């Protein structure tokens, strides 16, 4: 099947470019402000996309250009452009029903891809090997399914379905969603050589590891889930890799160093494009760490206990602790190329991914995916003069207590969400409030998992987006006044508050 699709995929390659995703969201936002007819707007949009395609083919024709572009290509961009954006922006009329043919087709192709992979399994090894599917079709198929079922569900249910799906794919994908039978067997074989000491564990093998590209998503899809997880990891993993690049070797034009740097910078561009296009929505809808944490929170809700509302000093302390710990860990990663034979820098023992070793995700995700036997253990006291053990224990406690006693207190500290948080105000998503419709009841502040008060109290500014907002849309969902709160993407209203009888 892949041979049949290859020329089409070649022609459609610009769709996988993150640059096109950036251009398209900007075009949508800009065109929305123009006082033109709908036809003129459509024509301008098509022209912009066609121009991009033309320039893309031209640049791809050169060797360096092809290399430059390839690192910024990702199936996430194609799916975002062809499935998610239309679902958010197309009005729900007959043209939308026509559009739905495309997600249906993607689901069909995904199913065919699985069948194909199973047919390629050698005769003597037939059996159940979980779901074998190429990443591009898995991502397309899952996103298409979610878009297809969205009109049937209430917002709260839909959010739960999306978060659960992302948890399954990102955490369990490492062993259940491999690319092919050979990939699956390779994963099983790797388990035999598993590194025992978690501090020495450096490389994991996520599903999306081929193609000389690294796939990162905003928020915390951790690489230390079973068998590497689905994507390469969270954005802090990417930045740690960036810190580890030997810039001296790059200066000497060492090809492997240049190659590594190019791949990471390309991944960084893709990550920033998605931050710009979706803000901190990945934290609210995708992050498997928060979904696991919310399982802890569910116990408190079930028992009917109230949640701890952090006071402003506590919120600030969490924020600065996150920034501080992240910075220390990244500085240590910068020191990694200069480690001596004993693995020490200035006498201090540093692991390959310092932040990962203090992050609660590396403690929690393997257990979530493989059970308690997969628990990697805490760092020992000899690493980093005890910094790693102390910080790991503190962050793990903060993570657990934060989710058990409060709602999303951890997310105020989590450095993985902070870069995306910068894009909340100024990015493509905008939380809007019509203060004339507000009755000041305060329900929005009451249900907010980040304990944000600004949505309730702001009565003059229409834009109530904030750095901490994870765009979970609970406020929009619960507001009892029609059209008071709404979420806009590139100027279009995606959802707004509506009274639910």
């Amino acid at each position: 099947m892949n041979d049949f699709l290859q020329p089409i995929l070649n022609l459609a390659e610009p769709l996988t470019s993150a640059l096109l995703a950036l251009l398209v969201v900007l075009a949508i936002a800009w065109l929305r402000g123009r006082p033109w007819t709908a036809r003129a707007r459509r024509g301008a949009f098509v022209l912009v996309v066609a121009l991009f395609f033309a320039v893309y083919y031209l640049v791809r024709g050169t060797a360096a250009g092809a290399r430059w572009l390839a690192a910024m290509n990702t199936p996430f961009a194609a799916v975002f452009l062809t499935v998610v954006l239309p679902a958010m922006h197309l009005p729900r009329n007959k043209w939308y029903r026509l559009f739905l043919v495309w997600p249906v087709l993607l689901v069909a192709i995904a199913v065919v891809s699985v069948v194909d992979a199973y047919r390629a399994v050698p005769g003597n090894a037939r059996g159940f090997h979980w779901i074998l599917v190429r990443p591009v079709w898995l991502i397309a198929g899952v996103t298409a399914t979610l878009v297809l079922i969205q009109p049937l569900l209430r917002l709260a249910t839909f959010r739960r379905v999306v978060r659960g799906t992302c948890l399954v794919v990102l955490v369990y994908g490492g062993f259940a969603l491999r690319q092919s039978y050979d990939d699956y067997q390779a994963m099983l074989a790797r388990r035999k050589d598993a590194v025992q000491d978690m501090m020495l564990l450096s490389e994991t093998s996520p599903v999306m590891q081929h193609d000389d590209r690294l796939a990162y998503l905003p928020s915390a899809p951790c690489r230390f889930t079973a068998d590497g997880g689905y994507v390469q990891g969270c954005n802090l993993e990417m930045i740690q890799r960036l810190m580890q690049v030997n810039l001296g070797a790059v200066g000497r034009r060492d090809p492997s160093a240049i190659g590594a740097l190019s791949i990471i910078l390309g991944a960084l561009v893709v990550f920033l494009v998605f931050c710009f296009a979706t803000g901190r929505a990945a934290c609210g809808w995708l992050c498997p760490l928060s979904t696991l944490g919310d399982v802890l929170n569910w116990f408190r809700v079930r028992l009917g206990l109230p949640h701890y509302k952090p006071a402003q000093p506590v919120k600030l302390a969490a924020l600065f602790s996150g920034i501080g710990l992240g910075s220390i860990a990244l500085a240590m990663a910068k020191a990694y190329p200069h480690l001596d034979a004993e693995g020490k820098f200035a006498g201090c023992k540093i692991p390959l991914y310092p932040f990962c070793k203090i992050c609660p995700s590396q403690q929690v995700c393997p257990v979530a995916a493989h059970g308690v036997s997969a628990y990697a253990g805490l760092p020992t006291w000899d690493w980093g003069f005890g910094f790693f053990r102390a910080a790991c224990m503190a962050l793990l406690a903060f993570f657990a207590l934060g989710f058990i006693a409060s709602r999303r207190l951890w997310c105020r500290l989590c450095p993985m969400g902070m870069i995306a948080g910068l894009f909340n105000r100024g990015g493509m998503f905008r939380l809007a409030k019509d203060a004339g419709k507000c009755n000041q009841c305060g329900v929005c502040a009451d249900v907010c998992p980040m304990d944000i008060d600004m949505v309730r109290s702001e009565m003059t500014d229409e834009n109530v987006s904030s750095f901490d907002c994870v765009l979970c849309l609970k406020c929009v969902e619960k507001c009892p006044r029609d059209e008071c709160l709404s979420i806009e993407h590139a100027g279009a209203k995606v959802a707004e508050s509506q009274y639910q009888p």
Partner: protein
Amino acid sequence: MRTGRFLCGLLSLFFGVAALAAETADLRLLPAPDRFFEAAAESAPNTAPPEGEVLAFGLFNDPRLSVTGIDRIAVMTRDGTQIPLAVEKDSVFYEFDRIVSLRFYFLVDADLADDAEAGLALSWGEDVAASNSEVEKVILDPEARSRIRAFQWGNADLAGPADTQIADIQVIADSSAGYYFLWYLLPMAIIFALLTIRKLAVRRASE
């Protein structure tokens, strides 16, 4: 109009790079350094030049190198004859399906090797057609050291430390294609500039 001109300028930059389809670099031969023979200490040597010929060996990883196969690299003498290369199979380093680094050796007549004006040149590109071969790991015979050379092109650092017996050093200007990774900073800068502008617009709107 202005955007059109900007676009043309951008395109010509890429076209300029694309125009360098076939590249050449002058080669010179230097005495073989000690590290060439370190492998012979552990395993039996398997490569030595026949009598009357000189073997030139080395690592070629010019930043401009980006070819699809080992037959796209050729060593030419001044009169245009091609010298076949023996490429060390495991040393070929790929980046996005293109070769960017490899080790090989080739044989030249002894008198050509010592002739400073021999005019050996390395040529590579998509329109180069050579018939090179692959060999297993090259372990040079220390016995034949006098007839083994290291080849060097352009920048002295990359080829490794070598005795400088040659009078003139032709330095080939570095092309900016090697720094293509810096171009990733362009979209990043655009994104952050957009973010800043939009944040300022939000601030102005809320006042």
